[in-house]
């Protein structure tokens, strides 16, 4: 097993531990803490949207016209339908652009 692969395994284990901490952390906290300060609460509430946006916006800007167009179509679908349909429609859109237009 080479060093890079070993690092990946460590990374996965660390991610698993981090996840497990979130899954019992609330149980431990609720028995200790009465409430969370409002600003900390707002910051924590913002974490998922802020993190995930950093994975979406650059892909939209630098991913090429085909990816950007497919993401726009998927966005419209996502306003009404499930993530699974977004994926399906986004995938169909990018395939259509690549094979029919470009």
């Amino acid at each position, binding site marked *: 097993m080479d060093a890079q692969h070993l690092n990946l395994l460590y990374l996965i284990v660390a991610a698993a531990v981090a*996840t497990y901490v979130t899954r019992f952390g609330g149980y431990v906290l609720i028995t200790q803490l009465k409430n969370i300060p409002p600003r900390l609460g707002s910051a924590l*509430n913002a974490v998922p949207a*802020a993190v995930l946006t950093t994975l979406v916006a650059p892909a939209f800007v630098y991913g090429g016209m085909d990816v950007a167009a497919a993401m726009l179509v998927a966005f419209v679908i996502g306003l009404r339908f499930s993530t699974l349909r977004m994926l399906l429609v986004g995938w169909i859109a990018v395939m259509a652009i690549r094979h029919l237009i470009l």
Partner: protein
Amino acid sequence: MSRGDFREGLRGGFPIMLAASPFGALFGALAVDNGFSIADAVFMSATVYAGASQMVGIELFGSNVQPWLVVLSVFAVNFRHVLYSASLARHIRHFSFVQKLIAFFLLVDPQYAETEQRGQRGLPVTFAWYAGFGIVIYVPWIINTLIGAIFGQLIGDPKAIGLDVLLPVYFLGLVMSFRTRDRFLPIVAVSAVASVAGMHFVGSPWHVSIGALAGILLAACLPPKRPAVQVHAAEKEA
């Protein structure tokens, strides 16, 4: 352990398992595309067992982001589970210590939602029911990862069959699932601009931390609308 409760759990989790299956296979295929071996992908599904954060993990790993940042991002995406386990406390108080350890491991979004509903309806939340519901989602999740990873290994160029668009669209869907939260639009706008600027001026791995920090700081600086952290029904992705 009551067999009736266990079977009832299995039946309840079955439709969730069907809905999650394509995501399990998708994860397997994309993990292989991002440089994971089949065994790595299966290992991650079996140990982390949190779809969205697994996707984030392979995406960041593929772009050579520093390990601590990958783990932090996984933690951030899974942070909602803190709220789940906090709110679950009153329903699983009667579980033994070992049962609690198992219950926390299986605590994915639908598991939380279903347990919470069951508790509110006044139905007994037994460990047998909880385990049945969890196992029928957990085991197929691993098997579907394996199937997706094997299938992904067979694919030559992921771009030729449009695989590369699936992660950005998936993340877009995740972002949209938080759209009922306070200050959603300003946070997303600031994080989007900061991450693109970070990508442009600093370089690839750092755009994640720069963009995320910008959005979180904005949220902390704006006057809070409602006091406490809330669990939103919109967050139903596995």
